[in-house]
């Protein structure tokens, strides 16, 4: 890699708080027979410089913005077209429109049918994908560099010339409806859907899954898809991200050829929605008779990605339930053996978000597991975390960065997410310092602000006959049953 293209972030700050101790490995010796003390953990090696990807910005003649990162390790190129609109702007009553639209892109274009598209990309071994999230829609391509031009042509064709053919649309609709039916097989999905509906209600987009409901998918017409596409898939509402074994001068003519005449358009403003107040903590049971485990999904509405509390929330959650060595897992798995794993997370989106804590636990310890969850959620609000926990979490977050920027598709994904959340290109160059500035007091105050066990929605999918009484006797909240008829389909 060309060093002049890289700027570096010094890890010095991070190392000051090293949790490691012990001998100086500086006295290296080739004499391996020399006795040494195995009880002493080796110290870390010398400080590292992380070269963050350098983003080169340029635009095409139609104004379409391009973000390019050179990555010359392998002759591979990853391209990601990011449309800055996703499921959040699905029309009312038509949940699933953005996702259905993205799903249909490779089902037919003005010059190719679905089989010709698949044949062309498989023939060069390219990987082509499309999809949508709450805040964006995506078309992705991974290709060997030697097939870049062929692959780009197909990628541009499905991005710019989709026709949403009726016959293929009906087939995709059937498959999507069947997948919706299959949600009933998955206790985790059932709990997550019930949670979203209970927390956000049915008038807020977050209350309904991005893939839609049986009713909404049945109601979506071809013109709904065409409308969504022609409203949001516009050059001024999109960015192309290119990461791989290429340079700006190589890419510019190719991108210009395929994307240079893509039109712009007027993008409607995004609406705001109210979120229902949760007056008190309550349990909601989803019945899965004879289930061997109960799936617990606890939480509430929470911050958006732009929140000033975001950085504090990352550190606090890392201590609470962000990884294996966090409190929830060490308690429920490694100490009690109730589960194969317990975690918590914030899902911080552009227009809001949620906090949740989750685990699959053995049916007969459902009540005991609830007690432990609530204990940990309350403890992090009422007591300072230890200095050791705090430093463990911070180091864990910051030093993970080199691994998260390893491959072209990882880098393209991170840039895409920065883009949808209005974060600057150099966001990660100051991220470490911000994480390091979080104090024990910040963690406790943030927990008090962002975790509220007394106004929480506690969804449990499991065998109601075996768990209901025990949950009631905890006296932690009313116990409701979520029936089939109130379940999102």
């Amino acid at each position, binding site marked *: 890699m060309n060093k002049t293209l890289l700027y570096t972030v010094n890890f010095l700050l991070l190392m000051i708080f090293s949790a490691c101790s012990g001998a100086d490995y500086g006295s290296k010796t080739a004499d391996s027979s020399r006795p040494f003390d*195995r009880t002493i953990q080796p110290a870390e090696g010398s400080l590292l410089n992380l070269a963050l990807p350098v983003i080169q910005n340029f635009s095409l003649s139609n104004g379409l913005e391009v973000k390019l990162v050179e990555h010359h390790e392998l*002759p591979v190129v990853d391209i990601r077209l990011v449309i800055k609109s996703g499921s959040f702007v699905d029309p009312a009553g038509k949940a699933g429109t953005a996702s259905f639209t993205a799903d249909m892109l490779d089902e037919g274009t003005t010059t190719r049918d679905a089989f010709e598209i698949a044949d062309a990309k498989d023939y060069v071994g390219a990987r082509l994908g499309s999809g949508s999230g709450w805040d964006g829609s995506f078309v992705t391509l*991974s290709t060997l560099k030697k097939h870049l031009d062929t692959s780009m042509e197909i990628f541009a064709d499905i991005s710019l010339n989709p026709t949403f053919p009726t016959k293929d649309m009906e087939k995709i609709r059937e498959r999507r409806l069947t997948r919706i039916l299959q949600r009933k097989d998955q206790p985790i999905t059932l709990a997550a859907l019930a949670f979203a509906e209970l927390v956000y209600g049915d008038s807020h987009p977050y209350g309904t899954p991005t893939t839609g409901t049986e009713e909404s998918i049945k109601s979506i017409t071809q013109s709904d898809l065409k409308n969504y596409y022609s409203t949001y898939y516009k050059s001024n509402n999109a960015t192309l991200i290119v990461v791989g074994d290429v340079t700006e001068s190589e890419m510019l003519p190719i991108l210009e050829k395929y994307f240079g005449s893509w039109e712009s358009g007027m993008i409607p403003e995004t609406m705001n929605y109210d979120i229902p107040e949760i007056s008190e903590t309550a349990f909601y049971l989803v019945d899965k008779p004879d289930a061997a485990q109960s799936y617990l999904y606890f939480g509430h509405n929470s911050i958006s990605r732009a929140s000033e509390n975001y950085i504090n929330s990352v550190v606090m959650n890392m201590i609470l339930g962000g990884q294996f060595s966090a409190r929830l897992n060490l308690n429920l*798995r490694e100490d009690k053996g109730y589960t194969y794993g317990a975690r918590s997370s914030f899902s911080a989106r552009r227009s809001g978000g949620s906090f949740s804590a989750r685990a*699959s636990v053995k049916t007969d310890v459902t009540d005991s597991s609830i007690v432990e969850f609530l204990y940990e959620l309350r403890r992090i609000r009422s007591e300072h975390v230890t200095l050791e926990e705090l430093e*463990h979490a911070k180091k864990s977050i910051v030093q993970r960065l080199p691994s998260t920027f390893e491959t*072209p598709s990882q880098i393209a994904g991170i840039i895409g997410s920065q883009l949808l959340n209005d974060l600057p290109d150099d966001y990660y160059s100051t991220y470490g310092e911000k994480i390091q500035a979080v104090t024990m007091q910040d963690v406790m105050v943030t927990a008090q602000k962002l975790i509220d066990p007394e106004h929480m929605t506690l969804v449990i999918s499991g065998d109601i006959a075996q768990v209901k009484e025990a949950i009631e006797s905890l006296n932690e909240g009313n116990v409701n049953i979520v029936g089939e008829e109130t379940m999102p389909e």
Partner: protein
Amino acid sequence: MNKKLNATLLFVLISLSTVAVGQISVENEMYKLDNGLTVILHNDSSAPIVTVNIWYHTGSKDEKPGRTGFAHLFEHMLFQGSLNVGDDEHFILIQGVGGSLNGSTNSDRTNYYETTPSNYLEMLLWLESDRMGWLLPAMTEKKLDNQRDVVKNERRQSYENRPYGLAWENIYFKLYPEEHPYHWSTIGSMEDLSAASLDDIKDFFQSYYGPNNASLVIAGDFDSGQAKVWVEKYFGEIPSGPEVVHPNPDMPVLTEEVRFMMEDKVQLPRIYFVWNSVSRFDEDEAALDVLGEVLSSGKNSRFYRAMIYDNPIAQDAAAFQFSREIAGSFEMEITATPETNLSVIEKVVWEEVEKIQNELPTEREMRRAINSIEASFVFGIQSIGRKADRLNSYYTWTGVPDGFEKDLSRFSNVTAEDVQRVANKYLDKNNLIILSVVPEGKPELQASK
């Protein structure tokens, strides 16, 4: 240290035609310690991270009767501390420096791997060597009971409480006779997990976890000279274990059709077809992989056209070769659309099988399949974690870590005639397992003879 000893990733693509065959090489340095530990070093300085990946050549195949699931339970115990490493400290130390780590067990091998910023390499070697050499002093009944509960919850979560979660376990009960080590699943039975004792831990550790039964890959941004000094320092004094002998019964062969049915809490019926085929790196393996691609990969595959698009009777359809060390199987897993009788699916499957047995796949089908497999070789070495695991895999099964090019050439050389030949040789209409999994209370949806 001589820079020339520092292996580097070398990647050369030579175009032989418009759809080229690649040439791919992952340079490495391999040597053995006196105690038999194989060490493989691969330098890749494209990111400031390092991976340590250890394979122990043991898995559920080596389990004793009455102790199914033990190799995997044992893997869990390796995260519970060793003489100089506290309970859970392995996870805490590695995650505490931003690292990621895990382990996994299958029938033939158990792997342990961690990736951290590269300035923690010495700590990783200290941690791995401590559990390779000094695990037993840290083992207690309490830790064993705790992980027994965790693994039982893993069985509940990933098998019993998962839709179709018990299908494969029941298929292998029937595909392999009771005395064959692939008869039982890696997760094991609840009773056998309950029976596992500290004595079993001691026996298994002494039999299978010696350095002579392991290979250590270090990959990433590190200095090879320094790494060799550390490897000798931390692993050199661990004594060799006994020579390991793995069970190696004859390749089992079904001599009849075995058809059965299970009811499950699922919405859609699903059907499985399983034939005895070949073990890993057998000369027919690559052709069987391509057969699976032609039948079920992508929209132009035979199954997509026949069952999902033209006449939509299936929600998804997959066909693939599953190779293990001493045996393998060719498998199909097809989920029907709601209320579709699985006999309807079966009929189409046999039509497609006969078609590929009687007519050569087209040149275009062959190129699509082979080019997709070739591209996946390149995509598959983008992360050092996956690359390290591949090096260990090639070493364990073939003795040569850099097996990429040789492996790839197997696929490049597969012909349409090979695909037709293996379809005839292995997809025998009379000797196979057919399992129908149907929604509870709907046995009429099963595929009946």
